[in-house]
């Protein structure tokens, strides 16, 4: 059978090359027509079946896109607003830290960024950390030091889940990097809780409606209300102000090198741009005589005819 296919193919090939009359047996023709028909019908059926279900998520399932905000550190050469980082840490400490940990930030990281050495030390000493055991092997405690990490609210993940109805409050150290939309998304989420969910939305017990959260149903309730924090610098603690400050603080947590990076970037851009321009100039300088030369061919004069 295959040999017959082969010969049919050979014949057709020859027919192209020599434009001779094709000699395909009627049986071969029938087999080919049948195969084409079966393949076409199968493809049509598969496509039809696939079209019966839509896989795309709705806008609600994706979550609303956060608007783009003008952060003080948004521009290419803009540093963080460190006053905002300082206020944001206060918001984290007084509000967020009830449920969210900040595992990757140590007290020493705050020194020279948002707090002085003395302030950070005083805050660290408010917490107890495990010390070396005494001579009898009994565990001991000591006040915190600058090198200690900021303690989380729960001992472990299971405790966190148990205290929050099964939902785990994510660690906030890198949360700005870990969410699509970064700062904009977290700000929109924190300030985007409507008073009531829209009509027709059914929420599981213990969950809240937030249009910016993918799926709309989030375990965290609205936490930032006007004046739940009193800023030491007199900034009015509106909920959007607190959200801006805490998001700035969390952005610093996930990207503490931003200030240095942008400053170094500016230097690199200046140097590399100058080097590039110098390279262009040198190239032109070296190539100018070659590019501008004129090659002239003076043919020898033909001998005069007598």
């Amino acid at each position, binding site marked *: 059978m295959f040999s017959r296919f082969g010969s049919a193919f050979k014949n057709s090939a020859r027919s192209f090359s020599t434009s001779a009359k094709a000699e395909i047996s009627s049986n071969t023709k029938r087999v080919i027509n049948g195969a084409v028909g079966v393949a076409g019908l199968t493809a049509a059926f598969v496509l039809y079946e696939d079209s019966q279900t839509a896989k795309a998520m709705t806008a609600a399932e994706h979550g609303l896109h956060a608007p783009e905000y003008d952060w003080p550190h948004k521009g290419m050469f803009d540093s963080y607003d460190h006053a905002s980082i300082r206020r944001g840490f206060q918001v984290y400490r007084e509000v967020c830290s009830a449920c969210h940990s900040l595992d990757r930030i140590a007290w020493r990281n705050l020194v020279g960024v948002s707090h002085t050495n003395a302030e950070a030390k005083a805050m660290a000493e408010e917490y107890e950390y495990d010390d070396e055991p005494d001579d009898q092997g009994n565990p001991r405690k000591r006040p915190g030091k600058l090198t200690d990490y900021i303690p989380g609210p729960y001992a472990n993940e299971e405790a966190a889940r148990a205290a929050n109805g099964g939902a785990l409050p994510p660690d906030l150290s890198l949360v700005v990097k870990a969410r699509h939309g970064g700062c904009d998304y977290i700000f929109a989420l924190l300030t985007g809780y409507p008073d009531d969910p829209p009509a027709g939305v059914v929420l599981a017990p213990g969950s809240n409606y937030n249009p910016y959260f993918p799926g709309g149903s989030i375990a965290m309730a609205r936490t930032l209300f006007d004046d739940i924090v009193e800023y030491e*610098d007199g900034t009015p603690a509106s909920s959007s102000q607190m959200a801006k400050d805490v998001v700035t603080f969390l952005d610093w947590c996930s990207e503490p090198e931003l200030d240095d990076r942008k*400053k170094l970037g500016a230097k690199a851009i200046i140097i590399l741009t100058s080097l590039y321009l110098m390279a262009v100039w040198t190239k032109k300088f070296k190539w100018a005589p070659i590019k501008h030369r004129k090659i002239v061919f003076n043919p020898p004069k033909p001998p005069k005819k007598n």
Partner: protein
Amino acid sequence: MSFYHTVFNTVFKRNSVFLTTIFAGAFVFQAVFDEGVNKWWEARNKGKLWKDVKLTIPGAGEEEDDE
């Protein structure tokens, strides 16, 4: 034309002077450039940097700024 002669005679004529110019230029340039960009950065982000914020913290800075 005489400018190029002056430059040639003062910088390029002796290899040792040429090399000195390169190294002295590199040494001075990096310090000046670094200082310059830092100044510009601090002027551009004035009020946002920690060194400015520190002054507004009661009891932490040398003097209390009213900003």
